[in-house]
């Protein structure tokens, strides 16, 4: 037991069980905890008090940025740096910029969504203390796990364990941090 403790994990069998347990953990005043599930559980955001994800804003910013840069690129390349007369039309007009800028907006927005998701989740990471636990591998299968982190001010091995067990958690276990 020379390793640092990462937290305590408890298993649940159904999304309904884990949702009820999560309500109790939240009510007990914990902050550094999370629920692990094989798929997104409907309503868990509300129970955990998660605010609207910032991914949408990252995507909007990158998509909008791409749109504006497409607009500027077209003006710069076809009207300013090398003015090009095509079919006797004006050197620059807004409608001509729309399609390429729109396409660039889609590209920027998509990259923004992926990059935003990866950044907000602090991906990529190749290691996580939880991945050392054999029982935790069942989370990607059919189990639901609540982990309360040891960095939480309210964390105590005995009290937290009691709470998780009273909330219906099975196989309550210590997660070591081996780094």
């Amino acid at each position, binding site marked *: 037991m020379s390793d640092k403790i990462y937290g305590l994990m408890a298993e649940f069998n159904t999304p309904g069980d884990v949702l009820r347990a999560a309500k109790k953990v939240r009510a007990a005043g914990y902050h550094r905890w999370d629920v692990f599930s094989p798929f997104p559980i409907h309503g868990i955001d509300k129970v955990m008090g998660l605010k609207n994800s910032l991914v949408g804003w990252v995507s909007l910013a990158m998509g909008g940025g791409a749109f504006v840069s497409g607009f500027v690129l077209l003006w710069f390349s076809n009207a300013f740096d090398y003015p090009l007369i095509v079919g006797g039309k004006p050197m620059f007009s807004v409608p001509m910029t729309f399609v390429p800028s729109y396409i660039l907006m889609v590209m920027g927005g*998509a990259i923004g969504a992926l990059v935003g*998701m990866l950044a907000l989740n602090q991906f990529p990471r190749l290691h996580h203390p939880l991945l050392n636990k054999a029982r935790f591998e069942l989370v990607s299968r059919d189990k639901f796990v609540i982990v309360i982190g040891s960095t939480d001010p309210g964390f105590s091995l005995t009290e937290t364990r009691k709470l998780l067990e009273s909330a219906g958690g099975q196989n309550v276990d210590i997660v070591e941090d081996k780094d």
Partner: protein
Amino acid sequence: MSDSLNQLKALAAPAELRRAPVVENNQGLGWLTDKLSAFAEGKTPLWWWILFIPAAFAATVIFPTCLFYQVFTGVGVWGNNHPVMWGLDIVNFIWWVGVAHAGTLISALLFLTRQHWRTTIGRMAEAMTVFSVMMAGLYPAIHVGRAWFDWFMFPVPNSNGLWPQFRSPLMWDVFAVNTYLTVSTLFFFMGMIPDFAVLRDRSTTRVRKGIFTFLAMGWTGSARQWHHYEKAYLVLCGLCTLLVFTVSSIVGLDFCTAQIAGWHATIFPLYFVIGAVFCGFGMVLVILIPLRKWCGLEQIITMSHIDKVAKLALVSGLIIDYIYLMEFFIAWYSGDQYERWVFGHRLFGHTYMVLGWMLIGINVGVTQLLWFKKVRSNLLWLFIIGVLINIGMWCERFVIVVGSLYQEFLPSNWGKYMPTMWDIGLYIGTLGAFFMLYLLFVKFLPMIAISEVKGVMPEADPHHRLGGAQKEDGHE
């Protein structure tokens, strides 16, 4: 307890109105996980090798031979010549883009409309999109003749001080196809991250564990991760849906901004989008029907899902038929002799009338078979119809591209187009490359979105009895 159960039963809709279950014979989340990852983990079956070897031969021998011979020698090795400067290369380009579209429609648009059945076939449709856009993107890049000047199409500062001419839809195409490839690949990859984690956790060998740990990028399935992931997924779906309607419209604009009779019509952008989707549903049927049997996925990709794909094919086919009708009507109604000539010759000209009638016979005729439930529940029929739809849509593109070019305004300018062995070889090569990539995907990656399918099961709903809902939650 039994009283309230009986009350609930009385309230439930009659059997014929109830939705078919997404997964038949569902035995819980663990069973589903085993079932869905079985093929990627099991021993490679014989049929896989029987399909893979010819596909890999086409992809690694025929494909590069035809490609390099054309690039080193010139476009002259193809049948393209004045006046038919767009031949099989552009026909195949449109065809491949078309195949891609149904994949995006299934995975993105059906997600936005909350069609739960899409979870089972979405991943396979996305893979189809990614690989066919790769094949599509190749054609214009070598069709330009000097592939080493392809970078002229990108706005790169260069010593000539020249920029691309952005008023041309051909230029928009470069952007659209590249964006389509990038976005659909990102979407494909992001959707697989939770499933990589499933395979990581199930892996038994060190190498497998290492590869999937790397690909899963640290996914643990925490609520915070799902929270960001779902948002990103939703945004990507919205953007992909935009692309379904944009990419083929821009390909359509390539044609309708030209003055050629038969191309110069405002209906073209819509025409190409619907044609693309129709063709893609044909390809979905061709891919799904054998794979569900050979991979043992009959309970996952149920007959009800196949039936829905067939219905979507029918709907898009009917829209296509309406557009054919309008095309011929407008050609006649315009009173323009060139338009009338071109459309008359699509069906009654001596050179390509066979293709014209195949187009009508398949896209207008054979499609109507999908009205019948008997046909929609017969897998062999559906498979054959799927192949025929692909052939029919290929003929349509040929008729549009070559049919309008070979007899232009001046009779002294008329000519004929016959593809050479290099045209055909390249097409066979791209088909081989597509199926090779697809087979590799099926064998090594999660071919069904494991976490998404689990997420729409009743066991996954915390407000359902199977999901652990209790009376005190206010639910039964």
